[in-house]
């Protein structure tokens, strides 16, 4: 009996240790980035272009704007497709086609980001014959679609049927019911899911490597290769220059701060219970 109690005590202690270890990883990452990135971060980082190798100083203003541009394309192309697809799956649809769409969504969701990069390369870069912000935006859009479609469907399904029936009973047509009753009721949840989805693709590097590529200068419009924060972290971290490493830390800190802010905002502020208020 003593032996069994000892095993019980030890094993339960081990599980607590596992938890402690797992949780501490995030705080370690956060702390390390704050320490190294914080030292390297300055106002110049947000306002200046990268300097040539060997010259210290400079910033990543172009990469910040580049990431913003890529996300704008994602929000304009990927999010509407995912949103309306989700509306279709939840509100319209018969049996076989929605099943097929859902299946394909899961398939697309599981595709590694680097393969999405190849796809966007074949789709946009090859016909245009050069890297562009548009190609990067298309790659990120393809990644955000499955996330948006899933969360939209899920949160619309959580809207009680009595709301739909009430609107229909008052004589509203189906699309009016959906547009004025169902979607507003599920809006908070959908917004949460969308923010999380966009935040996830905002940190993606692999699909941008050969679509948006990179750029050491400003890139006007959507037709030029564009720098982005994640790609800059990568190129600066693997480069052999001390000064670039400092910049990589700073860029990493900015990226992580954006990511955590979006996640916490989405989960805590917008949707305190993780479910839509009906």
């Amino acid at each position, binding site marked *: 009996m003593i032996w069994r109690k000892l095993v019980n005590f030890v094993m339960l202690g081990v599980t607590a240790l596992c938890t402690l270890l797992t949780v501490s990883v995030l705080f370690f990452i956060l702390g390390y980035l704050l320490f190294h990135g914080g030292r390297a971060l300055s106002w110049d980082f947000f306002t200046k272009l990268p300097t040539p190798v060997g010259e210290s100083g400079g910033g990543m203003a172009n990469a910040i704007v580049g990431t913003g541009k890529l996300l704008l394309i994602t929000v304009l192309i990927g999010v509407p497709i995912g949103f309306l697809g989700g509306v279709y799956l939840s509100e319209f649809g018969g049996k076989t086609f929605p099943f097929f769409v859902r299946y394909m969504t899961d398939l*697309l969701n599981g595709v590694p980001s680097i393969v999405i990069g190849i796809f966007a390369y074949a789709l946009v870069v090859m016909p245009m014959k050069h890297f562009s912000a548009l190609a990067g935006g298309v790659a990120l859009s393809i990644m955000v679609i499955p996330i948006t479609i899933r969360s939209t469907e899920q949160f619309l399904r959580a809207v009680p049927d009595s709301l739909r029936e009430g609107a229909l009973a008052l004589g509203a047509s189906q699309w009016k019911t959906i547009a004025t009753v169902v979607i507003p009721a599920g809006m908070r949840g959908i917004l949460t899911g969308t923010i999380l989805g966009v935040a996830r693709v905002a*940190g993606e590097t692999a699909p941008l490597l050969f679509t948006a590529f990179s750029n050491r200068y400003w890139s006007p419009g959507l037709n030029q290769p564009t720098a982005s924060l994640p790609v800059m972290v990568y190129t600066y971290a693997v480069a052999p220059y001390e000064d670039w490493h400092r910049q990589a830390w700073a860029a990493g800190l900015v990226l992580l701060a954006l990511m955590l802010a979006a996640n916490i905002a989405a989960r805590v502020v917008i949707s305190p219970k993780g479910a839509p208020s009906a």
Partner: protein
Amino acid sequence: MAAPTAGLAGGAAGWVRALIGRLKTGDAAAHTAAAMFAAIIPVATVLLVTELWNRSALARHKFGFSFFTGQVWDPIAGQFGALPFIYGTVITSLVALLIAVPLGLGAAIFLAEMAPPRISDALTFVIELLAAVPSVIFGLLGIFVLVPFMREVAQPFLMKTLGYLPLFSGPNYGVGVLTASVVLAIMLLPFIVSISREALLAVPRDQREAALAVGSTRWEAVSKVVVPYARLGIISSVFLALARALGETMAVTMVIGNNPKISASLLAPGYSIASVIANEFTEATDDLHLSALIELGLVLFLLTIVFNGLARLMVLATTRRGTAHP
């Protein structure tokens, strides 16, 4: 729908009238528009597969099956064998799972069985935040924190204690298969923890109570009753994690050492499918090189499909069982 020939005209007119009637309320239009947006997803997925298939045709025809067995990757000589990359991808993923599964399952058990609900929720939230950290940041910390640690502390220790095994015989560069596996393991943890925790929480209360009532300790109840009951959910979390590990690019690329050699030692530098695509895609000037890289992408795609599919089957099996015995 199949109207007899005689009534065809009338049927068609009626159908058109009905359509106009529905369009007036806007329902049909809204339905069609939403369906068209939904149709973009299957179209994109099919297009993805055909693009990968067609654009890898050159390499597929030239090398055939020897693409998977060849060990020489020499873009200048036009020789492309993918085995070192496939090996690197598989071995890093498996070692990562070996590290992450016990750790993740332990944490999941603690969060589901031991911790008070509020603390459990808070800790789970923190662990899920870890899943939101971009992979390039794991790579960044991998290069500047983990690689020096592996080179100066962990790997010398492994070589001293377990060096007689070929697995740990060196060389000691810091970068290598083991370092990549450790980074991957950390990235997989949140998935394993949150899905396994859900599976454990879904185990009915009476199962636990019955085990405790016959005199088992908490640990015995957990290890002999609760975990076996939730095993399908746990296994599905492992497959999901595996699918993610196979496709992970940046963090692995930054610490694996990027050397296309199959080595018995885990400490030696290796290379993975995703890494070679990331490193060489923009530099691939001739068509054969590009098509070989795209074929690697196709291989990666198929691998992840298989493991995602297995995970899905597990989830399906769990829900079926759940409804059979409410």
